[in-house]
């Protein structure tokens, strides 16, 4: 059996912005690496830092958290909490010896299909360089 050498990337995408952005990328027939597994969440504020740990624990090579730009949150303030939370989480992961390039948090709006494609491509290439 061939060993799968492609990295797996888990992306938590907010329902109102990034998920729509990813949808738009599909509608526009944009091509992006299939390494990314999109998980839809109601808001980036829904993402418990534990989801990140669980993803890494279960073998993900990279994790992304994507949400609306600050000020654009569907629930007004959700992503402001996300921002604080993951500023801390990023440092804590780095402190625990997880390469910071394996964890990304990005703001991608519903109309930024190209940004979604570029981000996913960039992150995949970065992680491919780091190795599984």
């Amino acid at each position, binding site marked *: 059996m061939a060993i799968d050498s492609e990295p797996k990337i888990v992306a938590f995408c907010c329902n109102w912005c990034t998920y729509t952005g990813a949808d738009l990328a599909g509608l526009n027939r944009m091509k992006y690496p299939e390494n990314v597994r999109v998980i839809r969440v109601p808001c980036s504020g829904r993402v418990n830092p534990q989801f990140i740990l669980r993803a890494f624990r279960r073998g993900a090579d990279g994790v992304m958290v994507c949400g609306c730009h600050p000020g654009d949150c569907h629930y007004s303030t959700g992503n402001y909490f996300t921002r604080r939370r993951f500023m801390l989480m990023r440092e*804590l992961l780095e402190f*625990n*010896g997880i*390469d910071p390039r394996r964890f990304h948090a990005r703001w991608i709006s519903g109309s930024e299909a190209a940004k979604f494609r570029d981000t996913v491509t960039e992150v995949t290439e970065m992680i491919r360089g780091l190795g599984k």
Partner: protein
Amino acid sequence: MTYAEKQRLMRDRAAALIEDGIVAYIIGWRETRFPDKTAVFFARDKDDAERLVWNEYAVPLTAKYMTGDRWPDGKIGVFARGCDSKAINRLISDNQIERENVYIIGLPCEGKSDDRCLTCRQKDPVAYDELLWEPDSASPTVAGRGRFFRTEEVEALGTQERFDYWEDVYSRCIRCYACRNICPVCTCRECYVDMHRTGFQGKRQDTAENRVFGVTRAFHVGDRCIECGECERACPMGLPILGQTQKIIKTVERLAGDYESGMSPDKENFLGKFDKDDKDAFM
């Protein structure tokens, strides 16, 4: 004043408070069968008060023990040093106890013979109903080492070395959850590790699961940590885990300026609020 004199004061005051009905009982320390260890003790009458001790081994935190009695018959008396008083403030702001149910007898501390006191920043109680003796004005802290020396030792390593360092630490963890049980900030009625059906915490005994627990615990305590170091003291494997939570405090300080949890009962914590102008390393 010597330890013996202070201990005399403590016992007399405890007996008087119980006899006068000001408190229902008092939480302090007693001797154990080990000469260099004390245990937390609930004094309920005059005879119990004679068993209270105050010496360099009176290390355990008394505050957490109040959380077991939510509807006390009268006030809970508690002997509190700097760390205990910070824990009490924390418990009040976390809605675990009510200020009017507590009678705090402040004990300005000398610094005890335990590693957790190495980075003590607050020997003297920050909240109390009475002080049993005057604080030593020479220094408000024990200040053996820099506040974040535990964190900085690990930060000095490279990424892979840090990974190996924690791999080594958590390979010895037996996941007894003593660090959680002793922590004055870990007050959830049902902890995530006990929710076996959610699968948040795997039950397998291996290093990876231990690491998930270690990081999660640090994050749950995170910005509310009062840096008392009880987690390290309680750890039967002697694991250096305070540096993990202090890393979060250190990051909060870098993002938002001076930060110390538990200094007042109404202080909001960092993750419970936000600022629209927060620094943003994302894109």
